[in-house]
């Protein structure tokens, strides 16, 4: 990939996994670029495919999920061509991941400092143990945890602290990209706010690139530079955060924004989205959102899947998969 601004590029990625009733596409032909130094928010509900996408980006084992199509390019490197061993080297040293529940990612019988030091030494064998420990303590302090706590075990720390430790792990090795999958979902709101502040600071100070996967659009509005919205394993919309929130193009995004309570507004109406997220093993035909879409066009939407492209007149960053914004939906209907 030529463009140096783009740190991670996903091209036509499809991830399939086995269920009792056959093969299901958890991610269906998704293309996405992540720019250096940005915080990209990836929003979706359960079944949207966002977590599957996150794990696929790290080529992590995820049940029966397999990448069946597409390319993953990290900083000019084709990840699909790497061996598991090479991927392992990448993970943790340049690609970091923060999960929803840090308890399961941290070794319960290992002190935090040992875990951090060990990880660092795995990737930088030239360092000595004292160097690694020193660096671990510094990092932890930078993230707002008192130095002495570094000798604690995971269960002795609160949820918020554990999440910070996960970030510390990512930073320990100068990760370029951190994929955070619902990092604040299990945190209280004040802790969440502080964690989001931390993400912004880290982005500014270390030029860290962050992919923030969440179902909470409030969180995305607080920290992200760009927003991508996923629905039923496909991308619905992507764009600059201000554009998407002010003028959402995809009806799903619009419905989502209207149905989420906004504490700053005088309470008025909350929009009720009809229906519920679809069953991925038999998704709706044509546009997957069409059964719930108030703007559905009878001849087009249930039949043809809309392409993910930039509408006319929209800014460069913008892409949406919706027939409403397609120049000639009627032509599609008659098969022109």
């Amino acid at each position, binding site marked *: 990939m030529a463009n140096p601004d783009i740190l991670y590029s996903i091209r036509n990625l499809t991830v399939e996994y086995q269920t009792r*009733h056959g093969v299901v596409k958890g991610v269906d032909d998704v293309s996405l670029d992540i720019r250096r130094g940005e915080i990209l928010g990836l929003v979706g*509900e*359960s079944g949207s495919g966002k977590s599957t996408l996150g794990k696929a980006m790290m080529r992590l084992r995820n049940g029966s999920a397999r990448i069946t199509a597409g390319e993953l390019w990290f900083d000019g490197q084709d990840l699909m061509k790497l061996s598991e061993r090479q991927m392992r080297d990448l993970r943790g040293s340049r690609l970091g991941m923060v999960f929803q529940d840090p308890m399961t990612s941290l070794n319960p019988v290992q002190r935090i400092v040992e875990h951090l030091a060990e990880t660092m030494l795995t990737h930088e064998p030239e360092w000595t143990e004292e160097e690694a420990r020193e660096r671990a303590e510094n990092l932890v302090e930078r993230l707002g945890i008192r130095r002495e706590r570094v000798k604690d075990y995971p269960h002795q720390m609160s*949820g918020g602290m554990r999440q910070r430790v996960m970030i510390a792990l990512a930073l320990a090795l100068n990760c370029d990209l951190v994929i955070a999958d619902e990092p604040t979902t*299990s945190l209280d709101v004040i802790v969440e706010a502080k964690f989001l502040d931390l993400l912004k600071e880290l982005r500014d100070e270390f030029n860290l690139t962050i992919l923030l996967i969440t179902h909470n659009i409030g969180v995305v509005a607080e920290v992200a530079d760009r927003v991508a919205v996923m629905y039923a394993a496909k991308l619905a919309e992507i764009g600059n955060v201000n554009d998407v929130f002010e003028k959402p193009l995809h009806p799903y995004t619009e419905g989502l924004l209207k149905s989420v309570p906004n504490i700053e507004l005088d309470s008025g109406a909350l929009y009720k989205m009809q229906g519920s*997220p679809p069953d*991925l*093993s038999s998704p709706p035909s044509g546009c997957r959102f069409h059964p719930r879409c108030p703007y559905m066009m009878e001849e087009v939407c249930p039949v043809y899947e809309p392409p993910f492209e930039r509408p006319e007149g929209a800014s460069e960053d913008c892409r949406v998969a919706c027939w409403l914004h397609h120049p000639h939906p009627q032509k599609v209907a008659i098969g022109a």
Partner: protein
Amino acid sequence: MNLPLQEQETPVPQWEEELAKVGFVRRLLRARKWYGADWWFVAISSVMVLGFIVVALFPQWFAPYGPHEQDGPRFLAPGDQPDLPLLIVRADSGFTSLEDLATGPDSEVSRPPIAVVRGAPTAGSLREQAALIDDELQDADTGMRLRPNIQRFDTVEEVLQSVQDGESFAAVMSSVQFEEVADQFPDLEAPTDISGGVASAGDFTLGTNQIGQDVLSRLIWGTRIALIIGFSSSLVALFLGVPLGLVAGYAGGKVDRIMTVFMDSLYAFPGLILAIAITAVLGPSVLNVIIAIAVLYIPTYYRIVRGQTLSVKQEVYVEAARSIGAKAGTILRRYIYPNVIPSVSIIFSVNIADAIITGAGLSFLGLGLPPSTADWGIDIARGQEFIQNAWWLVTFPGLAIMLVVLAFTMLGEGLTEILNPKLRDR
């Protein structure tokens, strides 16, 4: 604090809706697609278990002989034919069996002469067999009788010569003796043995034991006792252990502590030893064996049910039941018990296997069952001293135990695999 979103939010998959509409048998067959090897496991073992149950219920259909009949020669190896004495006649005489020698009021000779070798045991067999046939004839009231006039000769050749010459209507001797000199007497033939049936292999398919009982028949009759003990003791243990476990788990406190201490000490005993102690005290009978083994397994059910009850007790739906005002008894009955019992039904099958083997162990040691019972353990115990010469006395009962235990264990384990993930998915 937001809470993690789980797959809970996906709508009901279509295949589930379809499956709910389809009947039970179809579902069983479709299950094969999902469960793969486990399905075969369960299918094969359930067929085996069913087979054993049928055999145990109707042994008379399957066993050629009764459990105590001593019809055969002793120590007959499997596949060997019993050495029955042959009936030898002149080929032109037209006699084909011993019954043909029966005489009526208008026969020339009322007592047909039959030659045997002096001192041979075949004379006794002849007399027995003739007496049997004679009784039958008398019952049939046809006026026919069979009362042979037994002629004794010193040698085999003399015996056969007398038939050849026509002095005796027939001769009776062992097949071994006849075959040695058969070519000297081309006019004679041996159409059957004296019992009337054509000598057939397979009369005693698996051989006979030291007192002439058919091994196969004893095997089949033994199935009944083995399964009776297995099922009964497991059922008794279940009916006692499950309610105790439920009560202990739900009530907690002192009740729980006392019962658990008691059950744990019972559980700590090495199984067989405890069973031995109990049967020694109670005396030999099927009922006592069942009691002894049941006592052994009550703690197993108790522990499992208590553990499950403790965890189910914490579930939100139990709290919900309390919040709608349900009484403790109702909660136990409708909320806890149904959610605990699946784990029990799974171990039931394995438990039966265990009980059968313990029962066999007990009877092998000579305890528990009255010595006249047809039982695998007893057979093995009796046969072990002959293991060098008559290996089949020990091998076949041993194989039977192994197969039955295997079948029940496979069934239980297979069911665990199939039922548990489904339970967990929900």
